[in-house]
Every structure is written in structure tokens, then in C-alpha cells.
């Protein structure tokens, strides 16, 4: 009984505190032109009631998490994780997913297909960023710059030299890779949090240069009429092109998944994971820190570049406004929500975060605020993401016929 009373008291205090906190910004709105003040007391009531319950939930979750860290974690694999480990089941689910995806443009309208293309571009970006953050543990806040490099390289090469999509796709990836290596080389020896800020700086530099260097990038007005990818010289209808791009991006996503899956268990993939856990121990084991990090950075950038080429081909119009730092944060959010290092996680995270706001139009304006909340809440309550990456662990099982050890 006393505990319930205590809880209510704490929650009431929290609610009162938040009502005080949000009072000027949420309740008062000043119209400086007509000298009117709008009082929105309803908001305050909402905040009061909302925080009362949220604070209870918050404390309950914190308590549960503290309990969780004490108990052994190995036996608590979630349903999805167990599914992933069960190869037979996993393959059948994956096959269903592939069939569904292939049939998708024929089952749904073109509008839906178009949304799905955007979502899949984000999946690709998320998977690329996953190499950098999830595997190598480098926080890259300027990731969208490489996306911009890809998009602009297709747009400009096409404009000046008439390069077609299929040549631009690897070339855009290559250019982004070169940019990644050039930028990564001097900064990768910095510590984690400095690295994040420097990459953010690089991202903004690229965007600002694209915005101001009119002769090169046509400034804020951007580049329009970027051609869609050609299909063996046949002119496709608008619907046909959309479906065609859909299949291209699906193929690219599958290719990405394949590559990352192979990388995961390769020598270099393991070097990344080791580097993320302990840099010093890693160097002592003879792993070249700078080179390994640079590889992750460059590979991540390459995927962003290819995503950029597809993006430019899909929208057929690009301008610097599509490549702000917050775009990087959205991609980061998909990786964090899904689960750093986990391919399935990033896939689900990206689809969820990009598709949900599209279908819940009513919440569209709350999109960014929810992304912000997701980042904080995931870090506080579930740092591993929705579908946590299952690390390979070895268990030593006592065999029954082992000689008993006297203690």
C-alpha cells in the first residue's frame, strides 16, 4: 500500500514538474503581428495527465531493466532471434518474403510501389550505415553526404556526358567510396565522439558547397529531368519504369544483404567487431586500426553512393535540401531502432520507420519528434535494438561423465 502511495506521489510530482516545464512553450502562443496571446490550457492538462502515467511506466521499465541485467541474458532470446537461428524456418520465412516482394508491384497500386521504393532505398542506406556503426562502431553523422555524392554524380555525369544509369551506378558508388576514403583518412584516428562531430561537419560542408557553388551544382534550385534507367532500349510507360526501378532496388538490397552477410563472418568483419569492443586489445593482436576502420568507412560510403544514384533516378529531381544532417539522423534512427549490427533488425527498422509515417498521415507532422524520442528511448531501454544482433558465443557444457572436481 505504501508503495502504491509512493508511486502516485512521485508521478504527481513529475506531472506537476512537466506542467511547469512546458508552460511557456506549449501553453502560450504569441501573435506578435496582431498583439494577441493565445492560451492553450488544454495542452497543459494533456501534459499533466500524460506525464503522470508515463512517469509510472518509465519507473516500472527502469526497474525491470535493472532486474534484467542481474539475471543471465543468454536464455532470453526473443522469438525473432530464435526464428533467425532456426535455419529451416528462417529460409521458409525468407522465401515467403522474397515472393511477396516480387509480387508487390503487381498486387498494389503504383503509389504504394513508389513508397516502397523510397523505403527500400532507406533499407539500403541503413544496411550501409550498419557496416559503419553496427559492425565497426564508428558513429557517422555525415552519412547522407555520400548519398548526395552518389545522387549528384549520376545527375551531373548524365547532364554533361550523357552517362546512363547502369554505368553511373557503380561509378557513383566508386566516387562515394573515394570521398569516404579521402574524408576518413585524416579523421579516423579521432576518438568516437569527435569522429561523429567531424563527420557531421563534413556532411554539412558538402551540403553547403552544393548549395553555394552555383556553377557546379546549380545551387539550391537543384537538377531536374534526370532520366530513369533504360530498359534494353525499350521505352517503358511510367508504371513500367516504376516497377522496373522497384526490381532494381530489390535486387540491390538483396545484393547488399548478401555482401554484408558474407562480410560478417569474414576476417575483416570480425576485425571490425573486435575493434568495436576493444581498440587497444585489437591493436595488440596485430589488427591495423586505421586500415580496418577506413575499410568500413569506405564500404559504408559506397553503399550510400549507390543508394544516391537510385534515388536520383527515382525522383528525377535532386537539390541540396534532400541531404540535410537530419536525413543522416533518420538513417541512424533506422539502424538504432532495428538493432545495430543485425541485418534483419535494420531491415525491419527501416521499413517500419519509413512506411509507418506514410500510412499514418495524421501523424506525419509528428514524424521527426517521434524519431527523436525513439533514439532516446531505444538507448535507455533497449540499446541492442528491436532485433538484437546475436553474437556468436561458445558455451562450455559440463559433460555428464566428466570427473567431479573437488573444491
Amino acid at each position, binding site marked *: 500500500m505504501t508503495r502504491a502511495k509512493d508511486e502516485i506521489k512521485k508521478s504527481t510530482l513529475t506531472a506537476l*514538474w*512537466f506542467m*511547469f*516545464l*512546458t508552460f*511557456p*512553450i*506549449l501553453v*502560450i*502562443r*504569441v501573435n*506578435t503581428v496582431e*498583439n494577441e*496571446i493565445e492560451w492553450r490550457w488544454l*495542452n497543459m492538462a494533456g501534459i499533466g495527465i500524460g506525464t503522470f502515467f508515463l512517469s509510472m511506466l518509465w519507473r516500472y521499465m*527502469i526497474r525491470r*531493466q535493472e532486474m534484467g*541485467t542481474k539475471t543471465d541474458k543468454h536464455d532470453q532470446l526473443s522469438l525473432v532471434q530464435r526464428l533467425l537461428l532456426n535455419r529451416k524456418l528462417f529460409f521458409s520465412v525468407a522465401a515467403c518474403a522474397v515472393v511477396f516482394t516480387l509480387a508487390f508491384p503487381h498486387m498494389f497500386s503504383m503509389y504504394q510501389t513508389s513508397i516502397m521504393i523510397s523505403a527500400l532505398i532507406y533499407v539500403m542506406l541503413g544496411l550501409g550505415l550498419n557496416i559503419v556503426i553496427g559492425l565497426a*562502431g564508428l*558513429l557517422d*553523422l555525415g552519412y547522407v553526404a555520400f548519398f548526395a555524392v552518389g545522387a549528384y554524380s549520376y545527375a551531373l555525369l548524365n547532364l554533361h556526358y550523357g552517362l546512363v544509369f547502369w554505368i553511373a551506378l557503380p561509378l557513383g558508388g566508386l566516387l562515394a567510396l573515394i570521398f569516404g576514403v579521402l574524408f576518413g583518412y*585524416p*579523421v579516423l584516428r*579521432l*576518438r*568516437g*565522439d*569527435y569522429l*561523429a*562531430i*567531424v563527420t*557531421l*561537419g*563534413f556532411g*554539412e*560542408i558538402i551540403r*553547403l*558547397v552544393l548549395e*553555394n557553388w552555383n556553377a557546379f551544382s546549380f545551387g539550391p534550385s537543384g537538377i531536374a529531368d534526370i532520366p530513369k534507367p533504360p530498359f534494353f532500349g525499350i521505352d517503358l510507360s511510367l508504371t513500367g519504369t516504376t516497377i522496373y526501378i522497384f526490381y532494381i532496388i530489390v535486387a540491390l538490397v538483396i545484393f547488399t544483404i548478401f555482401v554484408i552477410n558474407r562480410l560478417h563472418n569474414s576476417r575483416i568483419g570480425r576485425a571490425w567487431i573486435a575493434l568495436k569492443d576493444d581498440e*587497444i586489445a585489437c591493436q595488440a593482436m596485430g589488427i591495423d586500426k586505421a586500415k580496418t576502420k577506413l575499410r568500413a568507412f569506405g564500404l559504408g560510403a559506397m553503399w550510400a553512393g549507390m543508394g544516391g544514384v537510385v534515388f536520383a533516378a527515382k525522383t528525377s529531381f535532386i537539390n541540396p535540401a534532400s541531404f540535410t*544532417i*537530419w536525413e543522416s*539522423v533518420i538513417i*541512424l*534512427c533506422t539502424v*538504432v531502432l532495428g538493432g545495430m549490427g543485425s541485418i534483419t533488425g535494420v531491415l525491419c527498422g527501416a521499413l517500419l520507420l519509413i512506411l509507418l509515417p506514410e500510412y499514418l498521415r495524421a501523424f506525419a*507532422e*509528428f514524424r*521527426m*519528434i517521434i*524519431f*527523436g*524520442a*525513439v*533514439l*532516446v528511448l531505444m*538507448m*535507455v531501454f533497449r*540499446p541492442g535494438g528491436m532485433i538484437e544482433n546475436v553474437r556468436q558465443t561458445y558455451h562450455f557444457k559440463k559433460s555428464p561423465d566428466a570427473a567431479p572436481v573437488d573444491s
Partner: protein
Amino acid sequence: MEFDYFTYLFLGGLTRGSIYALIALGYTMVYGIIELINFAHGEIYMIGAFTALIISSVLTMMGLPDAAVILAAAAGAVIYASAYGFTIEKIAYKPLRDANAPRLSALISAIGMSLFLQNYVLLAQTSDFLPFPNLIPEFKFWEPYSHLLTSPELVILGTTVTVMVLLTILIKFTQIGKAMRATSQDRMMASLLGINVNMVVSVTFIVGSATAALGGVLIASHIGQINFYMGFIAGIKAFVAAVLGGIGSIPGAVLGSLILGWTESFFTGYISSDYEDVFAFLFLVLILIFRPSGILGRAESQKV
């Protein structure tokens, strides 16, 4: 004439630098104590400016005299910004500190908080630029010099110097200052000696947010308009300043801010204003590459 232009740019850079310094202090103090880049710090500054705008508009419409409006707006901004700083720390950083989460997690959480606060103000208020009233009056006695430095700029300089002096006193001579210094040296040891580390962290956030809010009010009334996005660029620039001076060092933050203010002012005055923001970012990248410990910072040696 040539010399006058130089003086004008010099003083302009000084004002700019002092504002950066007010924000950079918060970054540097928080980093000094918990080694976290408080990404949401720029947003605190923005919230300070918004609170001041709201309070001053309401009070002006109620017909209060100018002096009372200025004081109430500044006080309100400081109180609310401190409250936000305190709450942010409790929600987004303290649980992570308790769970011994990696630094990357804390940084991601900070970015989330920044995004959240920006959009909170965007949704609750407006996405437009709001005109900010010029709260600071023109002084009579300053008139002969006002072509070089306007009265508001004089107030900005005066406030910055006062804040610096107060902050130095707080850190050097008070008990909580002593606790702060101890915590920044070794958090574990400080807590073993009976220092309430959580309290010290909260006080740091409150003090840092208060100075940022002052900076927000001053720059808003100087520039004359605010919007929800103002905290981002200002925050990044202040961070650049803090890193330049050596993050964790308070005199370093001031020095770095002044250097950044002057370079920006002279760069835009003599060369070009198109790439003003690019310049700040480039500066950051170059410092971090060539001297990550900053001008006054100590080079960290890694223990194994």
C-alpha cells in the same frame, strides 16, 4: 577609414565570440565532468530565447515598463533553460550513466534529444521566424562610440565578462566548485570521498544551461529574430569553439570562442560571406585533425 573598418570588424568579432563563449561554456563544463558531448545544448539556448520572447511579449502587452520586462524575460529564460537542462540530463543521460552504457549510446541519445526538442518547439510554436523585440535600450553616454559598437553589443560584452567572473568564482572558491573539479578529475574517486556525483552533474547542467539561455536572449535581441532551428548552427559553432580552446577547459572555451568570432568576422569582412558556415566546419575539421586536444587542453594519454 581603413583602420575604422578594422576596428569595426574586430569589435564585431569580439561580440560574436562572447556569445559563442556563453554557449561554449556549457559544452565544456558538461564534457569536463561526464565526457559527453551534450548535443542538445544548442536546443537549450534556443528554448531560452523562445521563453524570453514569450515572457517579454506577454508582459509588454500587460503594459509593464521596459526595464521590468527585460529583467523578467532574462530571469524567466534562465530559470526555464536550467529546468530543461536538469530534466534532459535526468531523462536522456542519467539512465545511461547508471547502466554504464558506451559513450556512443550517450551521444545517440543526445542527438535524439536535440531532434525531439527542436520539433517540440516547432510543433508547439511555429516554424516561421519570429521577430524578437529589441530589449536593450540605446545608452546616452555611449553615443560617441556607437558607430563602432552599438549599445546592445556593449551589454553583450559586459554580460559575458560578468558571467565569466562569476563562473570562475563559483568553480575556484565555492564548495560545489571544488566538488565539480574533483568529479571531473576522477568520478569514481570523488564519489568514494562522499561527493554526491549525481548532484554535481545536475548542477553542472543547470549552470551550463543558464549561461546558454543568457546567450540566447542576448543574441536574439541583437539579431532581432528567432526560430526553432537557431540552436543547431549556434550549438555546432560553440562546440567548435570549445574544441578549439581545448574541451573541458573553461578559459579555453572563452579563448576558442573569441578566436572563432574574430576569424569569422575578418573572413566575412575581407573575403566572402557566402561560405561563412562552411568556414566554421572546416575550422573544426582542421583543429581535430592537427591538434585534437585544443589550445589549452591537455593531451590525453590512454591507459591500458
